[in-house]
């Protein structure tokens, strides 16, 4: 078996998740990106979306990541983001409602930086929640 990777998800509010993993899947600016053991050193900018981490015992952790970046180096994967939530803590309905409101603002063109950021955050929550429900029913 390949060497497990040490994965860490951190935000300014503290560490969100840490553990060993056999595979990580994130969404970066160019599309979906999968990381397996012994990946080459990589530094990439992330897009708002779900990070999926497959733990050693085969569990699939889903974490909403609002942006930020990821470094991969010698089987250590670090995801840095402004804000992150665990997939099972997200309410899909609430997030969808908020997204609709923010999209309305966006359409009218009177959204500020903070709204834009919140939009990314909610978008990542929805993507993560959808993935979570897909995996865990």
């Amino acid at each position, binding site marked *: 078996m390949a060497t497990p990777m040490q994965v860490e998800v951190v935000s300014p509010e503290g560490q969100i998740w840490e553990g060993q993993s056999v595979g990580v899947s994130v969404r970066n600016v160019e599309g979906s990106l999968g990381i397996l053991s012994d990946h080459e050193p990589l530094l*990439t900018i992330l897009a708002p979306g779900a990070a999926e981490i497959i733990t050693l015992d085969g569990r699939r952790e889903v974490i909403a990541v609002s942006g930020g970046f990821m470094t991969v180096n010698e089987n250590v994967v670090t995801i840095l983001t402004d804000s992150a939530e665990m997939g099972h803590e997200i309410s899909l309905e609430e997030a969808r409602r908020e997204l609709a409101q923010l999209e309305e603002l966006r359409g009218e063109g009177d959204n500020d930086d903070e709204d834009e950021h919140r939009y990314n955050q909610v978008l990542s929550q929805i993507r993560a929640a959808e993935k979570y429900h897909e995996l865990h029913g």
Partner: protein
Amino acid sequence: MPATLRELRERRKSVSATMKITKAMELIAASRVMRAQARARQAVPYNEQLVRAVSDVATYSSEDHPLTMEPAESRRVAMLVVSADRGLAGAYNANVIRVAEGLLKRFDEEGKEVEVYTCGRKVRDYFTFRGRELAGSWFGFSEKPSYADARTIGKLLIDQFLEDDDKGGVDELHLVFTRFKSMVSQQVQIVRLLPLEVVEGEEELSPTEQLIPDEYHYEPKAEEVLDALLPLYIINRIHFALMESAASELAARQQAMHSATDNAKQLIDGLTRDANQARQAEITQEINEIVGGAGALAA
């Protein structure tokens, strides 16, 4: 005429009421300072990783980034001053203002135009009262700054820095904040935030961790990665300064309230003694009158 017994007792009552308030404020500040420190500690891993990544990319990317480029000549500078929203924190606000005024004077002597940004009500009031126009001010979160607050401030200041001089942009950004050294010692510091010098990371990396930077694969290109990372880095520095200032404010308030409580205790002791003396004098006088009266009757 010495104060009457009733006056002394009333004064003592009022001082002990004040003492209750200062005591409560001391305890509140003490518990909040712990929480502020805990929040600052939580941000440490994020800070470390970010500094490492930025210094890795910065060494790899040979091109000068707009945010790191020294301007040929700096005419306009911006200054962000971080103070508290409320007073009753000893010399905390006064110290920040003193250092800020010193910096303003220095810029004046160098013939630079200064744009002042403030964080916290106290310093905003100070400058507006003296008729200085503020380029921007934020308040309402001095005790508990969030990352979102830092992001709002950081984005605006970065935009100002990238803007041309003629359009109101600035060539430098200085930050005045209070570093939390310990519960009893806080120090006001001036940091030049922009143009950026990435130095911190280099010492922190141990030899084993120090990758040869061009082994990294960047997605998208290194320059674009740097574009995205540097603003994060600056926002993080501002977040850090806000958190340090918050902890300093609370520690200063705790200290101030502690000495206020001590002073009140001393006052109460003194007043109690005076009151007892006055009571004693009253009794003595009464006895004298009775004895004097009895003597007069017997005579």
